[in-house]
C-alpha cells in the first residue's frame, strides 16, 4: 500500500497555497513594479542621500517635530553640512510639491496609511 500519490498531491496543493501571494499578482496581471515617482525638476538632491531618505524620512520627521516643538530648534544640519529649516510643509513640500505624485504613490504601493493630512494643512497651490 502506498500513499505516494496523496502525499505528493497534498504537497503540491500546499505549495500552491503558500506561494499564493507571490504568483497571484503576476497571474492577475497586477502591477507590482515600483511606483514611478515624480521628482522635483529644479533640485537634484534631497537633504540627505536618497536611500537614507527612503528608509528614514518618517523617523526624521519625528525627530524634527521633537526638536522644533520641544526644544525650539528650527534648523537641521545635513550630513553635507547644509542648513535646512525643519518643516514638513515648508521645506519638504517646497520641493516635493505634488503630494499625490510623490508621497501618496509610494505610500499606496507599500500599503501604509499615514494620517499626517488629517491635521496638517497642505501648502496652498498644490
Amino acid at each position: 500500500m502506498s500513499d505516494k500519490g496523496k502525499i505528493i498531491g497534498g504537497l503540491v496543493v500546499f505549495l500552491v497555497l503558500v506561494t499564493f501571494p507571490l504568483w497571484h499578482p503576476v497571474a492577475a496581471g497586477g502591477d507590482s513594479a515600483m511606483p514611478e515617482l515624480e521628482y522635483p525638476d529644479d533640485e537634484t538632491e534631497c537633504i540627505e542621500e536618497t536611500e537614507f531618505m527612503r528608509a528614514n524620512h518618517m523617523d526624521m520627521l519625528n525627530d524634527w517635530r521633537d526638536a522644533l516643538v520641544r526644544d525650539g530648534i528650527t534648523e537641521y544640519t545635513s550630513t553635507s553640512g547644509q542648513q535646512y529649516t525643519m518643516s514638513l510643509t515648508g521645506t519638504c513640500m517646497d520641493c516635493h510639491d505634488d503630494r499625490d505624485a510623490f508621497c501618496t504613490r509610494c505610500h499606496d504601493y507599500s500599503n501604509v496609511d499615514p494620517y499626517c493630512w488629517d491635521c496638517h494643512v497642505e501648502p496652498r497651490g498644490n
Partner: protein
Amino acid sequence: MDESRRSFLEKAGKSALGLGWGLPLLNTACSEPGDHGHHIPLRSENQWAMVIDVEKCKNEEVRRACIDACNVTHNVPNIPDPDDEIAWIWEEDYKHVFPEQVHDHTPASVGDIPILVLCNHCTNPPCVRVCPTQATWKRETDGLVMMDMHRCIGCRYCMAACPYGSRSFNWRDPRPYIAPDSEGNLPSDYPSRTKGVVEKCNFCAERIREGLLPACVEAANSVEGGEGALTFGDLTDPNSEVSRLLHDNHTISRRVGLGTGPNVYYII
C-alpha cells in the same frame, strides 16, 4: 567613666536607627513640590507672560477681534453644542474668573464685567504633572506650556487638573466646524486637530518663533481704543513692557492661592 560598654552600644545603635529614619523624612519635607513625578522646572530661562487691561477689554469690539484672530490663526472650530465646544481664548464674567474677589455685596456692574481668559502658561503647571505621556510639558527655554498632539492619548487628566478650564477636548473631527475662508480653504496653515486630543492656547508659539506677537495681541492693537489692551512679553526681563506694567499697576491673576503661578495678569 561609669558608662558601661553595654549601655554605650545600646545608645549608639538607637542613634544610628534614629538617623536612618529621620534623614529621609527631613529630606522629603524640605524638598520642593516639583520633585514628585517627572521633573518640571519651576523656573524656565525665560517666561512669556501676558498683561490684560480689563478696562480696555470692556470694548466688545476689542474682545471680538482677539477671539476671532485666534480662531482664524489656529483653525479653531466653532462647535455650537457647548458640551463639545473648543476654545483657546474666550470671555467669562468677572465673578466667575475671580471668584475669590467677589462677595455678597459686589455690584453686578463689577461682577458682570467680561474678562478675556486663556491658558495661563503656569510656572508650576498641574496639567503637565498629570500628563501620562508628556504630551504637554513646560518648555524650559521660554516657559510655554506646550502640547504635542501626536502624543496626546486623550485621557483628559490635564483637563481635570487645570483649575482654569483652559483645555478643550475634541469629541469629534473638528474640520467640518472650521469656518472656511473666502476660497473655501481652511483659514490657516496651522494644523487642525483630530478627534480624541486635547487642545488649548499655545501663546502662538509658531508666531513667537518668527518674532511675531501672538495673534490676539496684534488684533487688539489694530482695533481703535484697543491699543495695549493685551501686552505680551518676557517676565524675566525687568525692562520688558509686561514687567513695567506689573510694576506700575495694580494687577491680579487667577486663583494664585493654588500655587500654579499663572502668567496671565489683569490690570483692574
